[in-house]
């Protein structure tokens, strides 16, 4: 069946009419005392990781500038880029949930910096992500579907270097700076935040203008390599891990075990991704901080499909499904549950079938 992913199209109306817009998502039963302990906030893990993140960014960028124009600058800029264009995505995400730090101003400060790096308006994307959690991979409702069906391989490849997202971010920033909001944003962003979006976009445009001017005045790529361009050449890790979150799985269901994927990853990727490889767990219990997700994963294991053993294992499962979804958009993977698990909650689509 054809899909219309716009927020104002026929699939949006169909989702409401068929009962997919609801709070009745399946949740694995977990003892309240255990959940309370899992939700407890702490500043320590995020402070440690933030000091490490900015320290490494300064080290890589400083090293790259010091050795330019040698080719040795290339790997240093690439490493800086991954931290700017990928690690900042996970910081944007965790701080948007308010779960990174116990101290609220620390969440807000890192959220603003990460939003700038990712070219995502902090207010629009706060609401966009709230909708993603309300209506995860519900066609016409979720504004953050990374892989739409039928799958278009060229589009995916373009986004591997951030082309579409970069252009979209710049376009939205320009429209916001002119004092306007886009139709999809008017659907999910509270009007009280529209003036803040406009103000933010104007500040950001000013920063980019100064950056470009500095590049021209000093006849140097360095300002652009520090600000802006890493969103393109450093986002590949975010994209590759992000595709695994929901790729090849079901849409229009009310059970995160059916439309999210948990993948075991190496420590470096987990640092960059801030443990979002535990993605079923995160969607089912979004108040649990990134540092507690491994613990939550163990508490839910009896009720969840087996995680993928590695990034490679995740792709081995996902890629054939995406290839088939080029021509068969209704196809999706349905992974077996352990015997101890509660049955899948498919929602109204399955009941109607």
């Amino acid at each position, binding site marked *: 069946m054809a899909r219309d992913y716009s927020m104002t199209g026929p699939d949006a109306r169909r989702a409401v009419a068929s009962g997919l817009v609801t*709070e009745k998502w399946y949740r694995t039963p977990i003892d309240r005392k255990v959940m309370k302990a899992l939700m407890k906030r702490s500043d320590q893990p995020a402070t440690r990781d933030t000091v490490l993140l900015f320290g490494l960014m300064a080290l890589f960028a400083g090293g790259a500038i010091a050795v330019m124009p040698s080719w040795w600058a290339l790997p240093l800029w690439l490493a800086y880029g991954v931290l700017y264009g990928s690690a900042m995505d996970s910081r944007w995400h965790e701080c948007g949930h308010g779960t990174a730090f116990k101290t609220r101003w620390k969440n807000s400060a890192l959220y603003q910096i990460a939003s700038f790096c990712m070219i995502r308006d902090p207010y629009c994307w706060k609401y966009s992500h709230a909708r993603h959690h309300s209506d995860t991979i519900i066609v016409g409702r979720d504004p953050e579907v990374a892989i739409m069906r039928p799958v278009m391989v060229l589009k995916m490849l373009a986004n591997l270097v951030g082309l579409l997202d970069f252009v979209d971010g710049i376009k939205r920033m320009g429209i916001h700076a002119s004092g306007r909001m886009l139709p999809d944003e008017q659907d999910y962003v509270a009007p009280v935040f529209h003036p803040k979006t406009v103000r933010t976009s104007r500040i950001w445009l000013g920063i980019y203008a100064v950056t470009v001017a500095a590049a021209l005045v000093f006849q140097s790529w360095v300002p652009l390599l520090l600000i802006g361009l890493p969103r393109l050449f450093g986002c590949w890790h975010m994209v590759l891990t992000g595709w695994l979150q929901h790729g090849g799985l079901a849409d229009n269901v009310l059970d995160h075990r059916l439309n999210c994927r948990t993948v075991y990853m190496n420590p470096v990727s987990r640092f960059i991704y801030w443990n979002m490889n535990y993605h079923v767990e995160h969607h089912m219990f979004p108040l649990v901080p990134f540092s507690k997700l491994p613990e939550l994963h163990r508490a839910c294991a009896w009720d969840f499909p087996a995680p993928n053993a590695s990034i490679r294992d995740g792709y081995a499962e996902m890629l054939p499904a995406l290839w088939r979804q080029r021509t068969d958009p209704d196809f999706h993977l349905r992974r077996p549950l352990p015997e101890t698990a509660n049955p899948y909650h498919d929602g109204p689509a399955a009941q109607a079938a």
Partner: protein
Amino acid sequence: MADWVDAIATTDVDAEDVIRFDHGSRTFVIVRDHEDNYYCTDGMCTHEDVHLEDGLVVEATIECPKHSSIFDCASGEVETPPACENLCTYPVKVEGGRVFVEI
């Protein structure tokens, strides 16, 4: 006219935690803060229809379990988006180990 309704025992909810309380066709939450003060607010978040019974209580605030809006339990005031509307709050008194809510 509002009545005082016997809602829960004080021991039904731990310190810095929340419990659901249904009365007639309405649903509420009763929050006990870190200093053993009790509060009653509407049960549903004002952003979307998500019940606050699974939320996180920190001191005298409650955080929606779905989208992380934080509300002051005493005033109902929303402190962080995406919610924009305050929660309704209800007077509470504690007598003889029971929590009463004026509804």
